[in-house]
């Protein structure tokens, strides 16, 4: 397409019109416009919902102040309450701006500080969990007895609502002198070893029998087969699992902060907000957590692309 255009240059305005139409087509056919539309609809719906949910409280307040009000005033007032049922998006953005950019990052009021606390335990749990998951998968792939005895338990381990056990893990580990980051990391680890183990079992078995036979004809040892065949062919599965694992690891770290009265972290921030009815604070912590989750998944996706390119995949 592009080379053709260079060989026979069209008149400037025609080309521009063509480009415009192509761009418009792409906008309708592609994802950007639909996503933008749906997002806009959500924001509008949000504002409407904020009016609807906050109206009762606001009318009450007006009546108590013996103040007459018009509908316009009511709407504006519902978007500017101190402790609304549902804060309007711009209130959350303002709170985020205040706690992220206007506050020093070492202050306990700074969301950056709380995000860092949560992030550090997320990453620690993620690292240990990934390692554990890979080790388990390697064991399972190489020993039949391990597969038969361990795999059912790995699967049923996830039907145990670990997040319910979180408070106890924190207390028990606290009793033997482990505080702060480690208990939270343990919970993250428990959540995120599972997708890695399952994905890697699948991935390490991904080489087809022909390839395995080839390795055998080369007289490759188990170790060589593992490094040269099984490991590389499991990488796509590994990264797919890692994306799930890092998201779930963040959930684990946040929830681990809830029941223990943790002093810092996004979970602690939510809990404090819920105690004092600071809805805007809860929502901004929630938004921060979401941004964190999205960027963590994004980083893993970048790593995936890098690894694929290193392995010679077509972009």
């Amino acid at each position, binding site marked *: 397409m592009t080379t053709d255009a260079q060989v026979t240059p069209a008149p400037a305005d025609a080309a521009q019109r063509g480009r415009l139409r192509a761009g418009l087509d792409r906008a309708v056919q592609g994802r950007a416009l*639909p996503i933008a539309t749906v997002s806009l609809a959500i924001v509008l719906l949000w504002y409407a919902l904020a009016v609807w949910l906050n109206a009762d409280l606001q009318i009450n307040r007006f009546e108590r102040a013996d103040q007459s009000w018009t509908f316009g005033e009511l709407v504006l007032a519902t978007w500017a309450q101190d402790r609304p049922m549902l804060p309007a998006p711009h209130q959350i953005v303002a709170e985020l701006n205040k706690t992220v950019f206007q506050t020093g990052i070492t202050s306990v009021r700074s969301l950056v500080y709380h995000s860092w606390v949560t992030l550090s335990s997320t990453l620690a749990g993620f690292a240990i969990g990934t390692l554990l998951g890979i080790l388990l998968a390697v064991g399972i792939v190489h020993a*039949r007895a391990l597969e038969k005895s361990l795999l059912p338990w790995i699967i049923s381990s996830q039907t145990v609502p670990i997040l*319910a056990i979180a408070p106890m893990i924190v207390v028990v580990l606290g009793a033997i002198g482990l505080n702060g980051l480690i208990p939270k990391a343990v919970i993250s680890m428990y959540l995120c070893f599972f997708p890695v183990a399952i994905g890697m079992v699948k991935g390490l078995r991904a080489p087809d029998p022909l390839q395995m036979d080839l390795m055998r004809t080369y007289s490759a040892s188990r170790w060589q087969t593992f490094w040269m065949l099984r490991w590389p062919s499991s990488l796509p599965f590994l990264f797919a699992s890692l994306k799930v694992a890092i998201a779930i690891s963040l959930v684990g770290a946040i929830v681990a902060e809830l029941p223990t009265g943790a002093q810092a972290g996004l979970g602690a921030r939510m809990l404090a907000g819920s105690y004092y009815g600071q809805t805007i604070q809860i929502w901004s912590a929630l938004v921060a957590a979401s941004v964190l989750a*999205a960027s963590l998944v994004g980083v893993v996706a970048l790593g995936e692309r890098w690894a694929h390119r290193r392995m010679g995949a077509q972009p």
Partner: protein
Amino acid sequence: MNVRIDTTAPTRRALSRPDPWCAATLLLGVLALAFPLGAATDEAAAIGWLDRPGSLVALLALLGGAGLGLARQAGVVRGLGPAGYGFVLLAATALAMATALDVVHDLGAAATRGFWLVVLASWLIAWRAVDGVAAFSVRDLRVQRAVDTVVPAVFGLTLLFLWEVLTVGFGVPQVLLPAPSMIGERIASSTGTLWADFEQTFLKAVLSGYVMGCTAGLMVAVLVDRVAFLKRGLLPLGNLVSALPIVGIAPIMVMWFGFDWQSKAAVVVVMTFFPMLVNTVAGLGAADAQQRELMRSYAAGYWQTLVMLRLPSAMPFVFNALKINSTLALIGAIVAEFFGTPTVGMGFRISTEVGRMNVDMVWAEIAMAALAGSAFYGAVALVERAVTFWHPSFRQRR
């Protein structure tokens, strides 16, 4: 030589190298005989093997099992396959473990080296037994399936055994980790409370939220599927949302819907909605072009095609979401209870009893939550097997 793969390796290796598990067990067992079972105290002398003939018998059974393994390898004993030998070892292990439990409950923290060596030996032999039974393979699928459940069961029971023996034998404080037997007693003595919590959290919050969330997800997916523009816009957002920490909305839901189960159900609805949406939309695209063309050649309308072709072929995806959601739902409900509940419910009980250091009660709740979660998952899996029996993953292997 070293390239030889699993199937032939054991028989060849057998001639040169003795089975390490059996050899180690034999060594440990003989070593154990040299030590007393229990330490001497002020009022009693050390407890030797002859004071406890039962444990001596159990130890001899272990030694016999291990010896049999070596004899098998040397070719002295013939006609006993790896699986058969595994079952023989299982019997010896069961005897040894039962005796060890009995001994450790009598001796408590007085158990000494002789005892621990036997525990170690029975663990090794249990592993060897599992290894043997895992090799079991017959044509009859039902028998095979039954034996295949033996392996993880033995593994789980061994873990429980070690947990019990270690906590009792080393006198681990109950606040840190209660023994399984204590947890069992607690479950038996407080069934009323446990049932009330189960009813509040599982029957009211989880089930209602799960049904509502999954139904809503399914219906929105069908709707979205009809409008291509909506599909392109909503799907990436749905994917994004499933990666977000949705449990975070729990405090907000508690604020909106009050302390009772309704707020927990609301959290569950939101948590289960997106996986269902994303999976169903993917599933609705799973029917292949030929099948769709066949429907068109039958002059089937949109709804007929949907009900007769596309929904059935989406079922594997739908059930995938149902299974994911079954665990998510329980997590959501329990976590939401941390933010305020009436004085009943599994999450409430866990957080209050941790505060009172009643750790055995917490473990009882956890055991029940695990049981409920597994049963829920299992039920969904059973329904899946009945509904999507045609799917390749359920065809009989081999």
